[in-house]
């Protein structure tokens, strides 16, 4: 049992706190809308090795575990960095797990190309609204019972969306089959779980930061001659949100650990963490916005940037309702259709 960052992880954290604070300030985040991608920032991030850090060294990666990647993801989430870090890193790991030949894998990992995974199976030869699909040249997706890899140029354009997420429909023409049947299902399930756990990490970090914006605002803003933050109703609203964010952070950490440790409950924990963290982040964003008064709603304040992106993190894999039902199948067994 060890529930603090290791010295190595703290060192990674120090580097990326500075990196994202400097390289992904709100001006950069705003300028990257509506696509939600900043090619220059991505190039800088790629130069740090972060996007491939969680690939084995044997295939040119950093040899780090998900926990170390999660440290980077937290900072990207905190600053809303417009880069597809999670999608790319998970797609690389999936390609590697699916025994993609080393040459192709290295080409994806080492160049400025971007990979992404589709969270939902393809329908009619198209992967729908793939996260990072607008900027990824390589898409991994379940097509029928096959795990396939499609390489086509990124459209570099996303349909207008509230989360300013670089999502896009992606046709799969000429895709290459990486795995089939049970193996494909197992691989995509694991990759989805990794996406869930890291996105949970990211959402919790967004929630923590948007809550901090609220705390800072109510400490500074006075109404009726006193700081807004001295009103008990404001304090209690922020306190409830912060308790959920703390719980969310711990759940995301546990999901990441369980994946790294190949614990049997890992995939379930990841799906749970995704739902809870996104929900907690939404509540934090809503509380922060409310206690900003009208300013929370103004485009020039940052709280609305978080409010919209957090919703995207929740909805990208499907409706929360469908996520709860999928979890129920795992936790309670499938619907039997029987009677007692």
């Amino acid at each position, binding site marked *: 049992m060890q529930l603090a960052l290791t010295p190595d992880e703290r060192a990674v954290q120090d580097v990326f706190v500075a990196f994202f604070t400097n390289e992904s300030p709100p001006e950069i985040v705003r300028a990257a809308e509506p696509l939600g991608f900043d090619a220059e920032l991505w190039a800088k991030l790629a130069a740090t090795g972060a996007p491939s850090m969680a690939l084995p060294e044997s295939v040119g990666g950093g040899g780090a575990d998900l926990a170390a990647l999660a440290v980077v993801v937290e900072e990207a989430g905190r600053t809303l960095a417009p880069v597809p870090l999670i999608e790319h890193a998970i797609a690389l790991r999936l390609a590697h797990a699916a025994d993609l030949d080393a040459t192709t894998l290295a080409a994806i990992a080492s160049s400025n190309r971007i990979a992404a995974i589709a969270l*939902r199976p393809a329908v009619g030869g198209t992967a729908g609204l793939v996260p990072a699909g607008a900027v990824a040249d390589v898409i991994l997706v379940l097509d029928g019972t096959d795990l396939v890899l499609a390489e086509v140029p990124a459209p570099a354009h996303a*349909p207008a969306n509230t989360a300013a997420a670089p999502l896009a429909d992606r046709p799969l023409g000429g895709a290459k089959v990486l795995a089939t049947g049970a193996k494909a299902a197992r691989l995509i399930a694991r990759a989805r779980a990794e996406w869930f756990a890291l996105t949970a990490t990211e959402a919790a970090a967004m929630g923590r930061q948007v809550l901090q914006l609220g705390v800072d605002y109510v400490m500074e803003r006075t109404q009726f001659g006193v700081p807004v933050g001295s009103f008990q109703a404001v304090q209690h609203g922020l306190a409830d949100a912060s308790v959920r964010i703390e719980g969310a952070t711990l759940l995301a950490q546990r999901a990441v650990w369980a994946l790294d440790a190949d614990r049997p409950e890992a995939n379930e924990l990841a799906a749970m963490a995704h739902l809870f963290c996104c929900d907690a982040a939404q509540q934090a964003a809503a509380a922060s916005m409310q206690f900003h008064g009208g300013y929370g*709603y103004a*485009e020039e304040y940052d709280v609305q940037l978080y409010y919209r992106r957090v919703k995207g993190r929740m909805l990208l894999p*499907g409706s929360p309702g469908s996520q709860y039902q999928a979890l129920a199948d795992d936790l309670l067994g499938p619907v039997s259709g029987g009677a007692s």
Partner: protein
Amino acid sequence: MDFAFPPHAEAFRTEVREFLAANITPETLDVSDGTIHDWDLHQKMAAKGWLSGAVPEELIPPDLGGGDRDLLEMAVLIEELQLAGAPADGLGVAVCVASMVLELGNDFLKETVAGPLLRGEVLASFGYSEPESGSDVAAAQTKAARDGDHWVINGQKMWTTLAHEAAFVILLTRTNAEVPKHKGLTMFLVPLDAPGIEIQPVWTMGTERSNATFYDDVRIGDEWRIGEVDGGWAVMKAALKYERGIAGGQFPSAPLLDAAITYCRTTTDADGRLLIDDPTVREQLVRARIDIEVCRGFAYKTAWMAAQGDFFGVEGSMTKLFASESYKQHAHWILDLMGPEGLLQHGADAAPLGGSIEEHWRHAPVTTIYGGTSQITRNLVAEQHLGLPRARR
């Protein structure tokens, strides 16, 4: 008890519905420029006499006409406008400001401001909030200094929504800094084309455009003053009662739920099943519908109280609190059941229903802020409805 509107009001409802069916087009509903107001619709309603119809009869000068709609009819009008999702912010502010002017203003203001407002020729904008005073509106710092029979105004207002379309702003100013804050305020109507006024857009997450307005040595005659010098707070409080005739915001969820049902009837989940058949979806749609019926109860009660001549301050606050908070929740529920497709916005080809549900979701949060935050409203309910002491807040 009888919750049915009287026959004349139901007849008027039919007239309003026919009018809206004929005059609300997709272009009317498109508020992507951020202004929740449509001149064409507004002027057609004015031509029908519906703006002056909303003003208390005893205030209407004979030459203006109107005043021939009672408060139950106006409640019907407001309900139908909301159910249709019509962009009618302009109607509310026009009627409220005109009523204030007709009750408390001088003949110059009645002629210059109230007439054109009620004829639908011009709009007005509320200039109460400032950067440093939102909920604490009495802390306004915009200064009006007397200079003979003129006033010189300096300061800044925030959230002067519609100012960029309006001819007038009703401006709360500080005329005496030596007395308690409520006692040093004076209200003016200020023509927005006066020299020294600058209007800057404030864009919001909900796409609505609001404004910051700046007043730099704006010089106006004393005839633009409404109410007593240092009596601005009394004018504000008097103005509150005119919201009774034009109270909006009781049915924000109704068009949202309509859209949700349409979406769920035409969209399948990953297993190919219509969303409308999903029990978890059905429960949420029903819950939203029940909340809307609760809003209807509140709306009818406040309309009836107003028609009885009762002032309904706390009832109006409760209506607003419930309607806006439940709307915000419904918007979350409904966007959520759409999955990633719900994120798509007006302008994206695949955006369901033209992105209208996503627009509701972005719009909803401001409704628990403007017109009194939910926090301020709960204070009012605690004190005025439950009789609790003034909070230690």
